[in-house]
């Protein structure tokens, strides 16, 4: 199976800095791809730095594993150790620079190999699968609000008014860096979309769908989503990494 990957991150219309970070790599020989999106927090500088550290560490640790052709059963462990290292590096920076003490980041990554993908995430950046004409969210947000909706404490429509709506239950740079893992099987023509919450906030999911279906290439698909968010006045940073299978 061949992969086409593209990605883009934008500061949005209101913020001064982009605290999101993205990256991806494709190894054609082994038929594998790695996609990452991180959304930093904790002040301008902190947010930028935390997401950058997370993405860089993940790429540094996992990109070589793509070429090595690591057996699937070891991949989770490898991903978790990369995240542990990223978490450790963020902690070190926090100690060095007291101004960054509140920094942290979400992360979502997809390790695509053959017709399946290993997903790992911490926080509320998401991974979606676009299959023919249905869009599925493959990750569960690590947020207080999500827990409240799930345990029936609140109705979904109340979520935007909840006082703690912005609080993550887990983040890279907080105490516990254990990721939630998932597996996705991919059929030819499927698309895998990684994004930060800026996309969800700015553009309704129904719109992604039509925009992606109209796109002629992965790149134009990514652009369609980002431009669409900006047209809607995206307040937050918006990031998208899109993988298309052929």
């Amino acid at each position, binding site marked *: 199976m061949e992969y086409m990957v593209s990605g883009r991150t934008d500061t949005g219309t209101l913020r001064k800095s982009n605290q999101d970070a993205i990256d991806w790599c494709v190894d054609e020989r082994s038929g594998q791809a790695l996609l990452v999106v991180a959304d930093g927090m904790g002040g301008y500088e902190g947010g930028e730095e935390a997401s950058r550290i997370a993405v860089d560490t993940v790429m540094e640790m996992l990109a070589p594993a793509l070429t090595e052709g690591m057996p699937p059963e070891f991949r989770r462990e490898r991903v978790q150790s990369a995240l542990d290292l990223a978490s450790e590096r963020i902690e070190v920076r926090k100690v060095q620079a007291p101004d960054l003490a509140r920094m942290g980041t979400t992360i979502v990554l997809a390790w695509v190999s053959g017709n399946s993908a290993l997903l790992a995430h911490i926080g509320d950046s998401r991974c979606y699968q676009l299959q023919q004409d249905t869009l599925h969210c493959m990750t569960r947000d690590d947020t207080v609000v999500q827990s409240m909706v799930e345990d029936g404490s609140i109705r979904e429509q109340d979520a935007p008014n*909840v*006082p*703690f709506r912005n609080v993550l239950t887990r983040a890279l740079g907080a105490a516990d860096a254990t990721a939630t893992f998932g597996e996705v099987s991919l059929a030819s023509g499927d698309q895998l979309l990684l994004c930060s919450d800026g996309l969800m906030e700015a553009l309704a999911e129904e719109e992604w769908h039509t925009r992606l279906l109209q796109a002629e290439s992965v790149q134009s698909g990514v652009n369609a989503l980002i431009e669409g968010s900006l047209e809607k006045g995206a307040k*937050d940073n918006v990031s998208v990494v899109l993988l298309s299978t052929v």
Partner: protein
Amino acid sequence: MSAITFVFERMFSLRLLVVAAAVVFAFAGDSLPLLGYLDRMMFSALEDATGGAIDARELVEPAWSAAAIRGALMAGAMFLVLVVPRLGGAAALPVVLLLAGALVVLQAALMFYQKVWLPLGEVVTLLLAGYLVMLFWLQPQRTIESLTGNVLAARTRLSKLLLRQGQPDEALEVLADCPPDDHTLELQYDIAIQQERKRQYDKAGATYQQILAARRGYRDAAERLAALDSIADEATRAGGSGFDTTRTLVMPQQSVSRPTLGRYEIEREIGRGAMGVVYLGKDPRIARTVAIKTLSYQAFDASELGDLKSRFFREAEAAGRLSHPAIVTVYDVGEEADLAFIAMDYAQGRPLSDFCRPDRLLPLSTALTIVARVADALDYAHGQRVIHRDIKPGNIIYNPDNGELKITDFGIAKIADDSRTRTGSVMGSPLYMSPEQLKGHKVTGASDTYSLGVTLYKLVSGQTPYQGETLAALTYQILNKRPRSVREFNKDLPNGVVRLINKAIQREPDKRFANAAVMAEALRRQASRETAEAS
């Protein structure tokens, strides 16, 4: 280049014409027959007067004559160009006439007694003609000078006004074209001090530099500049690019002016609240001590700030309308470049959170009375359509010495929490928050009653009805579980108090006390029962 423009701009002036005339007279005077007219007239006049006693052939023209005439011409030109403007047209007239007369007399005397021929006529001509020319120059010059004076005076006044209105940058800008005289320097100095107070240390430093460039050693500008530089060093060492909620205002050393917020002089930091740093300040006009709570903008994104500010000012104004002995009076709200602030009565005493440790609880009747008084104040506020939103022991200041009680932070405490994006762990706890508030439903007076119920729970037991390791766990419990009975923590609690607390912290707002006044009434009944039993 600037020298050329300087010369060029001043070349086409009537004053130059006078100087040029003097030069022409000096070096080409002989070829201008008109210039000899006065001398010829003088000669014939003297001849007539003496009845031909003077013979032209007897007169000697000394060797120094030409040099003397030239010197006199130059001196005359200098007099016209430099002295006449100082004297003014009218005052210069007698001087010019006197000089011209003296020269004529001198020439006659030399001729008559010394037999020396010194043709001073050229000099007299220059003086008289030059004076006329200078009159033409003086007239517009006076207008220009008076206009310039007016403009400078107006600029100085405007600058003072701007400074008084707290706009030092604009005040400085207005002064930009004024020559650095005493007035200007003094004003610039005042501006620099105000910039210092507003903690715009970079700008203040630039202003001091400007002053020092104009006059070295002006007052203590140099020392102040040095002090500012050391503050800047400190800030860089701290590694901060700006202030955040956890950072205090830099409290500068003696040689730098005390910072101000609005008209309040900051004395010291007294604490850190939900929004940001709290300062003890003083209103210099009426010597009133105030507590100033600040909301630092640095912690927020530009996208949230507009909304946040308008909410802050709306809530602060609503709180400002409240006037109740048990509610902290809000005097003022204001804004600086990097923060908003609210100035309120400085309540002496300790927050009730100081009396919440299980081994350090207040006597039951005291706790009940305090909570009853808080309920009264809440009822008053609810009547004014103001909801506190964050009733908890930390927001109630109690003075054990005189029994005074003050509720602080009406409406404003929750603002920062709600707006901040994903601060993760740094966030107010929902321990005292009502279920409807947690769900994001409309907050009413009943929510305050609930929070007050939890406060009472804490005051009589040292515990809260719900406990959870994480925010998610705690939220789940508050929304879905039965509270632990307060009796579990305090076995001696009378049934009445337990019932009262249970009613106040009902999950359904309708099942709680009908309003805060009803709760106050129940609390007081219980308190008097307590006192009766105790005695």
